[in-house]
């Protein structure tokens, strides 16, 4: 028994060390953002800073309109995800539950999946030109609409998987009892796929919050988002280490807090029905 115990302890220690090593880049980034110049640029690199400073964060708040960028991100990402979730869940439900003539359903589902493979850069130029004509460039709803380019296919595809996992019979029973299709969708299918919906939501939200390419082209001035701010401190050959790392930390924290709170759902959602 004691041999087994020692083995178990060894596995646990190795696992902790492994995960800690895996997350070292995160520690390094966070640690950089609190360092004074001398500790940032030292050889050999210092594992721990000699002194902790908030100078980088203060500089960001004072000289770089930090709150402005944070607010823009906080408007655009939820707006785009909300629209995509509403529209996408309806489409996903349709594809999961109804039979369409000429196999349109499965063809559409496959086509939507292939859309998700398409990089935003393939459409960003015409989207910019079209949006310019419609005066949608540098508007919250314009950028949010552009984000449906990658959010919608992802949401439809993922939600379709989750909705298909909800047993059809439960819904049939409700329909027999006189509920309409929409009612049974809202009262049965949606509550029964909460983990899947939460997972889809947080993944889409993180993708929108973290999006850089479209933001750099479409959110040109008034609507600039956090990733654009971070990237503005990173140049081809050089960068402003303090501001870059501090803005990166501030941008990452909100998503991590949300992720932490709904972690339980994410783990269940990503099990794709394997663990009930």
């Amino acid at each position, binding site marked *: 028994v004691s041999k087994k115990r020692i083995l178990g302890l060894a596995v*646990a220690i190795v*696992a902790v060390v492994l995960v800690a090593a*895996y*997350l070292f*880049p*995160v520690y*390094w*980034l966070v640690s950089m953002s609190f360092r004074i110049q001398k500790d940032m*640029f*030292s*050889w050999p*690199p210092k594992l721990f800073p000699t002194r902790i400073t908030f100078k980088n964060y203060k500089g960001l708040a004072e000289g770089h309109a930090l709150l402005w960028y944070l607010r823009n991100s906080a408007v655009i990402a939820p707006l785009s995800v909300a629209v995509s979730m509403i529209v996408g869940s*309806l*489409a996903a439900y*349709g594809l*999961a539950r109804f*039979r369409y003539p000429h196999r349109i359903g*499965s063809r559409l589902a496959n086509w939507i*999946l*292939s*859309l998700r*493979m*398409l*990089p*935003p*850069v*393939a*459409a*960003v*130029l*015409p989207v910019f030109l*079209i949006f310019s004509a419609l005066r949608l460039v540098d508007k919250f709803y314009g950028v949010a*609409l552009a984000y449906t380019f990658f959010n919608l*296919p992802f949401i439809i595809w993922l939600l379709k998987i989750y909705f*298909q996992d909800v047993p059809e019979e439960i*819904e049939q029973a409700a*329909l027999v009892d006189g509920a309409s*299709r929409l009612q049974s969708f809202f009262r049965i299918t949606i509550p029964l796929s909460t983990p899947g919906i939460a997972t889809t939501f947080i*993944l889409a939200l*993180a993708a929108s919050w*973290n999006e*850089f*390419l479209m933001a750099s082209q479409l959110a040109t001035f008034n609507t600039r988002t956090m*990733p654009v701010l*971070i*990237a503005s401190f990173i140049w081809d050959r050089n960068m402003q280490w303090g501001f870059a*790392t501090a803005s*990166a930390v501030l*941008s*990452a924290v909100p*998503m*991590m807090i949300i*992720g*932490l709170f709904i*972690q339980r759902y994410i783990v*269940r959602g*990503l*099990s*794709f029905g*394997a663990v009930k």
Partner: protein
Amino acid sequence: MSPQGTPPSGAVPAAGGEAHHKHWWAGQSKWLYLLPAMVILVGVVIYPLIYMLRATLFQWQAGAFGRFLGGKLWAQLLLGEALRIALVNSLILAAGTVVCELLFGLVLALFLNESLGLLRPVLRGALLIPIFIAPVIVGLMWRIIFNPQYGVFAWLIGRRGFSPIAQDNFALYAIILAEVWQWTPFVFVILLAALQSVPIESLEAALVDGASYLMRLRHVILPHILPAIIIALLLRSMESFKIFDTIQVMTHGGPGRATEDMTYLIFRTGIWVSDVSTAATYSWVLVIILTALSSFFLRYAYREKG
């Protein structure tokens, strides 16, 4: 697409057509579910792609379509060196990231599936962190680590002044590393959930039969988690040709064109150089390749799942 093997939607029993309605539109409400999504997708995906197709056929200049090019641009670019380099880089990036993510994710999941008690959810939660970080930030992290003068990597290998992202033959692998670092945990979480649902009885039965660990892995564990592996593979493959942010932050496609993939090539020609017709042609090459790949891939994935 459920792990239980529900067939694709084409085979789901019909439920839209309630027969007791007598109007011709009875049961047609199922189209309304798809309509809003289709309108948006036509607006933000189809129309832009058609616009781009037009730009490959007519020289685009200063906001207007000009001279008819026909297939001239296609012929010129298809034979060009830039496309070849970018395609090869894209393929290496896609294959490299997906294979490594699946492999490392599986190993990590098998390892953390051992009896860890309360430690497991804590470690799993910690490993979720990279998933939520912006790719721009991931690129920034690795660029700091790979800094030639003050970076941890140069210190670890004991060669100050050396940076893989400044080397022709290493830069692409540095990008792969950054991507794999970010997304291995995603695969890990999916596979760990699947591993935890492997029935203990069949594992015990295999043990009684005297099966070694590798045999149990091969004959009990892997077949059971195959649907999860396919879902992880699909989810990661969908993203594998879109790598851009880490390249932009870490290497700007360089040194030379060592890390210029299709995405970055389209960006450079279309947005830096503002040669819209060229960028449009590259975009369409990519659209064609991705459509072919995904249809091939889906056919295979569905067949595997029976």
